């Protein structure tokens, strides 16, 4: 059984991080260059970590499967980044951001981590502004803010609708600087396919060069995974096509516990699916909810009618009706489930019946078309490109889609997994968002972990490792891991079945969406737990992976990732089935209040579930880390 020690420092909440920083073990500056650190992934968390650690003097090697670190999917985040700067003087504070995040996560996050996140949020904005990130400005030249995703204060910083892009390019520039200076050795087109564990410590990785197919061993004193989330287990999502769980999944199979895999976020404002060929769902930033009003027809029979022909009296602005104080700005999970309920009642719009309207006609009356264009023009353009409809003339159709995974590898307060030497940052870990993430908090967490947490906490581990003691790549564990990777590659290429990889990915996605999506039930999850292993068995018997292992082979890459999803999907369902409560993004139909809200069971489930791998076809072990709420009271999360 894994040892899960959260290692939360003692003392008052607001002092924990400061105290911890002064008490943490340090590595002597002259010794830093004797330590090698591997960073896998170069999104916000990975780039920020690689750059910051190299600045401190560590030798860093950074691996990305993309052709450039600038392609990581952090780049697609639209809305913004939260920080408790209180520049607007509207009553924001570190404590308020902390409290909002804890409540938003439905009391399933670790208090001390969340407080630290809120504390360092202010440093992030300083850092990014100094890097030249072109944040939106007011006419006085100071930074602009907006309210976002269910917050009642204006604490979101943004760069048009491309905040993720600008923050990532900032982190990428910091990383590029350190690559140029020789502090980081960058490996692009390089996919991590196994973790090497020596004497219980993570000491290296096995990497496939995606262009040449060459498989190499890399050793280090510590390994950092910042490889993002696993939402592509659903096949259709707002993730990039290449986003995958392979790095964290293979680390799981080497002993790292997986925390709360069933916590996934379904984003309420995405463009609905149009056909079977669909590869990707596009998000419409939820900033649109600041001015757009969401509705469906009151009567089923109106659902195919032209929306502009439906009179006001026949429209149900259901979010405003059900949640009068938050209205269209209620949190993502709440808004998504409400949309599902409307569609389940048969009032969904569009051909498929899986859609609701997001209507700007009031905003256009108030601000004029040009006013709306100024705020949301690029989003309206995207909508038009994809649907060929103009949202200036007719309401947008939107539907929820998988957007983020709050679960991930379990980490302690230092962001170290239960495998010593393995650190996990950003979306890849489970740590800060509990059961639901608030808007504009993902960028904040990625950068907090990368710039302001890991540079301190990694030394706590390294100080205990003798410089130069990392095992050689000739070690048996490295040979075994490489063998493992080569064998899997060979096996995938030799099946020579009848169906392409996408066939299995689509089928898995349908099972996951149906049974482990917005609403989950015991019988549904039990069915999924039969269907997924059967599908996996079929995959390994009937998948067709053409080409060779010695060149660029995108089918092979995809096959490996889908093979992992076929295992991870099962773990998610298992976790969802075991968690007999509803909380945040995890909604079990059996556990709800009469009005359809989440019914938590703090007594039985006020803990983190950290799953531990036990071997192929053996049920994993469910470890728990109790969540001790010392400073906030776990209460019913209401947005009414």
């Amino acid at each position, binding site marked *: 059984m894994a040892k899960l020690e959260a290692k939360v420092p003692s003392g008052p909440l607001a002092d924990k991080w400061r105290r911890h920083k002064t008490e943490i073990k340090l590595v002597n500056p002259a010794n830093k260059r004797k330590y090698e650190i591997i960073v896998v992934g170069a999104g916000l968390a990975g780039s*920020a970590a690689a750059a910051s650690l190299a*600045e401190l003097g560590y030798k860093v090697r950074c691996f990305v499967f*993309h*052709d*450039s*670190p*600038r*392609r*990581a*999917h952090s*780049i*697609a985040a639209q809305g913004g980044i939260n920080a408790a*700067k209180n*520049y607007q003087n509207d009553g924001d504070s570190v404590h308020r951001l902390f409290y909002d995040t804890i409540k938003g996560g439905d009391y399933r996050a670790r208090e001390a981590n969340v407080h630290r996140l809120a504390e360092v949020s202010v440093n992030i904005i*300083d*850092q990014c*502004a*100094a*890097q*030249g990130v*072109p*944040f*939106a*400005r007011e*006419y006085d*030249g*100071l930074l602009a803010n907006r309210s976002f995703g269910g917050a009642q204060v204006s604490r979101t910083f943004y760069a048009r609708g*491309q905040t993720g*892009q*600008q923050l990532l*390019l900032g982190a*990428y*520039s*910091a990383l*590029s*600087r*350190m*690559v140029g*200076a020789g502090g980081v050795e960058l490996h*692009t087109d390089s996919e991590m396919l196994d973790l090497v564990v020596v004497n219980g410590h993570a000491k290296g990785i096995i990497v496939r060069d995606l*262009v040449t197919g060459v498989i190499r061993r890399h050793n280090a004193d510590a390994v950092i995974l910042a490889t993002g989330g696993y939402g592509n287990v659903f096949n259709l999502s707002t993730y*990039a*096509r290449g986003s995958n769980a392979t790095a964290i999944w293979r680390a799981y199979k080497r002993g790292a516990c997986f925390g709360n895999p069933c916590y996934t976020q379904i984003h309420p404002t995405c463009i609905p699916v*149009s*056909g079977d*060929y669909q*590869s*990707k769902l596009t998000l419409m930033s939820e900033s649109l909810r600041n001015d757009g009003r969401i509705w469906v027809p009151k009567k089923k029979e109106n659902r195919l009618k032209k929306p502009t022909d439906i009179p006001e009296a026949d429209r149900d602005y259901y979010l405003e009706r059900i949640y009068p104080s938050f209205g269209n700005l209620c949190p993502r999970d709440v808004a998504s489930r409400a949309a599902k309920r409307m569609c389940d009642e048969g009032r969904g719009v569009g*051909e498929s019946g899986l859609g609701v309207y997001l209507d700007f006609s009031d905003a256009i009356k108030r601000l004029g078309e040009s006013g709306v264009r100024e705020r949301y023009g690029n989003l309206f353009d995207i909508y038009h490109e*994809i649907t*060929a*409809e103009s949202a200036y003339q007719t309401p947008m159709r939107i539907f929820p889609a998988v957007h983020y995974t709050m679960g991930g590898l379990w980490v302690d307060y230092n962001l170290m997994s239960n495998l010593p030497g393995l650190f996990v940052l950003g979306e890849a870990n489970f740590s800060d968002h509990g059961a639901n993430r608030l808007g504009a908090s993902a960028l904040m967490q990625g950068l907090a972990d990368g710039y*302001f947490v890991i540079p301190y906490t990694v030394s706590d581990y390294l100080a205990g490792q003798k410089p130069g003691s990392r095992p050689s790549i000739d070690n048996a564990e490295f040979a075994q891991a490489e063998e493992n990777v080569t064998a899997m590659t060979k096996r995938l290429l030799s099946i020579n079945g009848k169906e*392409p990889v996408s*066939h299995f990915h689509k089928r898995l996605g349908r099972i996951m969406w149906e049974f482990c999506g917005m609403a989950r039930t015991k019988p549904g999850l039990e069915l999924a737990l039969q269907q997924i292993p059967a599908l996996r068995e079929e995959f390994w018997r009937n998948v*067709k992976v*053409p080409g060779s292992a010695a060149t*660029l082979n*995108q*089918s092979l890459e995809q096959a490996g990732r889908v093979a992992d999803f076929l295992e991870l999907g099962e773990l998610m369902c298992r976790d969802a089935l075991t968690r007999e409560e509803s909380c945040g993004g995890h909604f079990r139909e059996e556990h709800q209040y009469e009005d359809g809200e989440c019914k938590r069971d703090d007594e039985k489930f006020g803990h983190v579930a950290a799953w531990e791998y036990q071997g192929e076809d053996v049920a994993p072990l469910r470890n728990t880390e109790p969540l001790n709420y010392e400073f906030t009271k776990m209460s019913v999360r209401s947005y009414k």
Partner: protein
Amino acid sequence: MVSERSSKEFFAVTLRVWRQAGPSASGRFVDYPATNVSPDMSFLELLDVVNDGLTVKDEEPIAFAHDCREGICGTCSCTINGKPHGPGHGIATCQLYMRSFKDGDTIIVEPFRARAFPLVKDLVTDRSAFDRIQQAGGFISVRTGAAPDANSIPVPKDDADLAMDAATCIGCGACVAACKNASAMLFVAAKVSHLGLMPQGQPERDKRVLAMVQAMDEAGFGNCTNQYECSAVCPKLITHDFIARMNRDYVKALFKAKFKPVSSASGGAG
């Protein structure tokens, strides 16, 4: 334009695709007929469908670069009917929808061709030269944790907005592929202008432009002869005015460098 066609009307096209097994292999066009094309399908989704068809026929699928499929990561990179990113305006390949084509069309699909972007396979090229240019100077040197309060340096809104216009570059390389000289001027100018417009970027302004231009030349990109094919295909519609801005910065920096010790003009990461 808004299409009147209902999503039910399927049509057929032929994809004429550049196939090349590797950098040293010889390449050729191969025709792939595609039926059941929906106007609501994206161009890359059509490639997915064609690839699945090839796979089950035991042929190797077409390698093509893509990731976000929402026009922001800069990975996708096809020249379609002779134009980088295809017939649309201000979009990347992944944002092109089949409603831009009609029944019976033959669509010619090639990689981004440029000396500094060696071919990897089929439609995939190696654009790492862009990273090397960034590593030479595409940054503001600020150590993590050493930043002053963000509002201590106000930035005039117009400057911030203009910097943002330049900063929207997605690093796709279409500008290079469109240029008959395969010049990277628009890409470099966008980065130089973004950082040069921000007050935070002033201390390294001269050094940056010199270093980035030098890295660009070393990577084998051609010279700019002011044809402006680049901004015409740029998915972010980055204007060539930034090239003029960079040229001014460059001349000024060169001039100033003459009156300084040589080492300070040598660029490099610092």
